[in-house]
């Protein structure tokens, strides 16, 4: 850890300013830099005449949203959900199934995806949150796989093979999203919006209670909180956010399959969060970028690219428990 015990001669901290503003500001600056760079991608794609770049980065942004939502419960609630990809799937299938029946509006897709995600999160969360540690991991994994097999068995919607979309979602009757760059900026907008939302939540009263349950659930009970309620609410919020990424993923790929929901995907989301920096929000975003770019590049050289990714993960965790975000904070001399 970078924080060393405070020397007793240190000037007393002013009680009026316990907010650690500077660090907060630097996070804001980092977020601005990352999102600002992202916004340039379609421009670069245009200049380099490589339209694939925009589509590829849309996918990265989609997973950044999913990883961000996972960090909310993983980083701030210490809830290691191994079934988070299921929620991405709910959003994706909301697009596929509704479109199939002629309902193509993205707002309906979003409402349906979020609705299913919320119901599933309430039901499975209420059960999973009765357990701790490894049991929580196993039971969320089991529920995730249940969802996976459910959609595998839906032969009317492609079953195992998945289903191609006839087109992207419409926006109030227009086919705006048909343009790759529009879909890109809509996805980036969603990511920025959800990042700001998540940042507000973790700093709110609710977020402080959630972080408290992560630190010590017994202490929280002893001052009058019932951790279960707050953990369940966080679980539901994270699921709903992930389903939004699913709606966008279906649009990016114009194809939906149960593979989106498999435990591999859930594991990959966890890797993104840990690699990027657990409990930093921005870390999930960075993790998604790094993992997916590594996947892209490493898979060119070898089919065993996952091994390369594993190696990178081990190195990062060994040298910076707070992931890439922690590395940057140390390099820039933040902390205390």
């Amino acid at each position, binding site marked *: 850890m970078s924080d060393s015990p405070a020397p007793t001669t240190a000037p007393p901290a*002013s009680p009026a300013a316990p907010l650690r503003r500077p660090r907060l500001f630097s996070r804001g600056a980092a977020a601005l830099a990352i999102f600002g760079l992202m916004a340039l991608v379609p421009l670069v794609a245009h200049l380099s005449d490589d339209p694939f770049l925009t589509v590829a980065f849309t996918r990265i942004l989609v997973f950044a949203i999913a990883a961000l939502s996972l960090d909310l419960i993983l980083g701030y609630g210490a809830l290691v959900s191994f079934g988070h990809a299921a929620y991405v799937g709910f959003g994706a299938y909301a697009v596929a199934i509704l479109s199939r029946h002629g309902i193509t509006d993205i707002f309906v897709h979003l409402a349906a995806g979020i609705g299913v995600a919320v119901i599933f999160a309430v039901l499975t969360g209420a059960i999973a949150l009765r357990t701790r540690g490894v049991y929580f991991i196993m039971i969320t994994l089991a529920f995730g796989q249940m969802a996976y097999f459910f959609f595998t068995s839906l032969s009317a919607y492609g079953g195992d093979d998945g289903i191609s979309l006839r087109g992207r979602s419409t926006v109030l009757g227009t086919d705006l999203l048909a343009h790759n760059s529009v879909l890109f900026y809509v996805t980036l907008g969603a990511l920025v919006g959800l990042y700001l939302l998540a940042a507000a939540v973790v700093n709110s*009263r609710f977020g*402080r209670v959630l972080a408290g349950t992560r630190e010590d659930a017994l202490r929280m009970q002893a001052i009058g909180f*019932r951790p279960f309620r707050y953990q369940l609410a966080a679980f539901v919020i994270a699921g709903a956010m992930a389903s939004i990424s699913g709606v966008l993923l279906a649009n990016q790929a114009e194809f939906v399959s149960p593979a989106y929901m498999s435990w591999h995907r859930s594991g990959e989301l966890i890797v993104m969060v840990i690699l990027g920096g657990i409990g930093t929000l921005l870390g999930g975003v960075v993790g998604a970028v790094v993992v997916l770019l590594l996947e892209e590049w490493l898979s060119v050289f070898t089919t065993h690219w996952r091994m390369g990714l594993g190696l990178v993960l081990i190195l990062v965790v060994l040298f910076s428990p707070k992931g890439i975000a922690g590395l940057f904070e140390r390099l820039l001399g933040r902390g205390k």
Partner: protein
Amino acid sequence: MTARLEIRSLHKRFGALAVTDGISLDIAPGELHAIIGPNGAGKTTLVAQLSGQLAPDSGQVLYDGRDITHMDMAGRVHLGMARSFQITTILHGFTVLQNVALAVQARKGSSFRFFGRADAEPALNAAAIGYLRQVGLAERAGDVARNLSHGEHRQMEFAIALATAPRLLLLDEPFAGTGRQEAEQLLALMRQIKGKQTTLLVEHDMNAVFALADRISVLVYGRIIATGTPGEIRANAEVRAAYLGEEDAAC
């Protein structure tokens, strides 16, 4: 007058071991009641049952005449029961101020608020600073809790308990591990709240116990072998044999 806390033939076993073996006890409003007893006597286990952390096998706990035997910990806290832990239980990654402010937050308004910085709520911070001042820890408010010394952690435990605005304090060895100066500060603080605050004090520090307690109960092997004023307890031959003698020898 109804007792603030009434314990009726409480029983708790861990396997073959009867850790709480038929304890009955009344604590009057405003009383400072100390519980002493050798290591492993079952003091912490008793406190755990009173605070709702552990369920007794049988018996009842009444609070202001109301049966709370089956109420959970958070429910009891909202009725005004506060507990400090023998083994320091704090949020190590939070600042000292945040630790205490969170206890204030628990009783001031809803915590299902998703917007607005909790750290910037003046009402919570001002109240928290007040409690920290009371225990002499205000100048450490901005420090991360894990960086504090053991004695300071004990003071924090106390501030957190006070911040729940209790009507009954359950203190499990608040003096354990405090340095001399911290112990004196704590003793002064306990003197201050004595008479205003109803307190159950589990403590090994005999100086503190005999200086503070209105009444003392002696717990040995899960049973209360004597209850009385400090004078009565000091004079009690059975207590001397079972406990005090051994304590004197040790010191």
